[in-house]
């Protein structure tokens, strides 16, 4: 059994938007600090479990056009989420599988084939100084990750110390039925509220009976959607209150904004509904031009869905306790 040296990875090209992320910066929203974290928590957790990391280890989030990375050590890696055509020294690299990238190899990404965001985990996790308890990058406030910004050419990424038995993980896969399929048109389940009384019944029918398209004005903070207009009932002014990831804000132009990981903690637009937690990983894989249909769901059902999703994953890939404990 070989003990691996901590990973050292040279960034040859940064890619379009590659950031260090974990499961989010909680406990500081009351100070206006965004949660941020991986947009697709399911793919992040799977990537970490495949390489034997605890769920909250830091990973890379790759957006549409991935980076080019030179591995300076033998490194145990898993790539999950979107299929961004990964190759290692010109050969197709498997995804949703724990693999060994040999020292001196280059990992390259090509055209996006399905989904928008891929996740790269390395055994031992990516090293970064935790800020307010998280390694997640929030670019807007230049917080966390690698100096608060996306990767760029010349950066060097360092891995944490992995367990001696990590190489035993190589070849571990997520069974195919559990691997999500990413389509250009998705159904996302929503829970009505909290500002249901700001909207007419007709607006809810419009929201659930139409397709909404992800516009190019979309990023980690939120997706601006285009589709049939949603109008508030009256002209009652709305007082800013707490937001949530997945919330559908309705600004005065009636075009919904779907709030995502880097959302502001409070917002001044009423929220007609919120996408359920179990469907947020699918929302994270949408790119401009993709279409959404919203389907009503109850809170109790949404919570059952999430528990089922997690129980299925735990049965195939149980969580690993913290490396330091």
């Amino acid at each position, binding site marked *: 059994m070989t003990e691996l040296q901590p990973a050292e990875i040279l960034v040859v090209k940064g890619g379009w938007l590659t950031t260090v992320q974990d499961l989010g910066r909680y406990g500081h*929203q009351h*100070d206006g600090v965004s949660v941020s974290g991986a947009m697709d928590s399911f793919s992040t957790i799977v990537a970490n479990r495949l390489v034997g990391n605890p769920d909250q280890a830091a990973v890379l989030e790759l957006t549409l056009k991935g980076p080019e990375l030179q591995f300076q050590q033998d490194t145990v890696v898993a790539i999950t989420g979107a299929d961004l055509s990964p190759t290692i020294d010109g050969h197709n690299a498997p995804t949703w599988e724990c693999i060994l990238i040999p020292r001196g190899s280059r990992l390259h990404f090509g055209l996006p084939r399905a989904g928008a965001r891929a996740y790269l985990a390395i055994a031992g996790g990516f090293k970064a100084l935790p800020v307010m308890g998280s390694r997640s990058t929030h670019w807007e406030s230049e917080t966390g990750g690698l100096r608060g910004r996306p990767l760029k050419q010349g950066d060097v990424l360092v891995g944490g110390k992995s367990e001696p038995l990590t190489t035993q993980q190589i070849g571990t896969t997520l069974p195919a039925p559990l691997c999500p399929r990413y389509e250009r048109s998705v159904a996302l389940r929503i829970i009505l509220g909290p500002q249901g009384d700001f909207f007419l019944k007709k607006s809810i029918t419009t929201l659930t009976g139409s397709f909404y398209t992800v516009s190019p004005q979309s990023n980690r903070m939120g997706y601006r959607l285009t589709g049939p207009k949603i109008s508030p009932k009256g002209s009652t002014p709305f007082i800013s209150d*707490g937001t949530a990831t997945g919330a559908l804000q309705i600004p005065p132009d009636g075009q919904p904004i779907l709030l995502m990981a880097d959302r*502001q903690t409070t917002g001044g637009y009423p929220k007609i509904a919120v996408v359920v937690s179990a469907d947020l990983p699918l929302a994270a894989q949408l790119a401009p031009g993709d279409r959404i249909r919203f389907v009503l769901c109850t809170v109790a059902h949404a919570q059952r869905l999430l528990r089922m999703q997690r129980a299925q994953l735990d049965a195939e890939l149980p969580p690993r306790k913290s490396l330091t404990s």
Partner: protein
Amino acid sequence: MPPANRPTRAHRASRTVFRILPLGDAALTIEFGNEINSEINSRVVAFATTVFDQHWQGIHDIVPTYRSVTVHFDPLQWDSATLAKRLKALPRREPDQAEPPGILHEIPVLYGGEWGQDLEEVATFAGLQPAEAIALHASVLYRVYMLGFSPGFPYLGLVPGQLAMPRRATPRTKVPAGSVGIADRQTGIYPTATPGGWQIIGRTPISLYRKTRTNTFLLKPGDRVRFKPIVRDEFDQLSRETET
């Protein structure tokens, strides 16, 4: 804890009204009213403190705002119905008993010029000379209602109605750190440089957000703020002190 010998107050307190609204499957918003006033906000701050003091496992964030508290939780550890029941059962306190007097902060501001590019427009909106608009803005003891928008950004109120100019039609792509702005009856301070749509009337040289310090954020909901107009020399002097 409220003293036991005040039954009337305790009785009134137990009837404090709020609505619990679902914010998806991982958060609840507890709404105490639908307007901006210090009484409702005091109840909000007191309730947020009570929830925080429970130290419940699986509660991610407790976010007080003008008139509501949003509680974010791990939906694998909590279901909304159970959490709502627990929140309803919490002891409630009259705001005057519950709220420790917030800290009073004096924030020095250099008004106008390149530091407050919208001062003249705000003064025109108010029908005042710029100096009168400054005096009016600085005459109020403001309450910190909430933090939001960006790390450490305080929403202060209430701005005198005369100065309550709406946001700019087109937000600026970058507002410098320390900028003091007005949006309707709110005034606020940009802790870091961000895009922003508020009417910028001045700038403070002191820092509201220090990433490296343990006490990262200067202001807390329930604190009070008074703005103190300063001149250029004082601004430069304080800027140098803040840097070191």
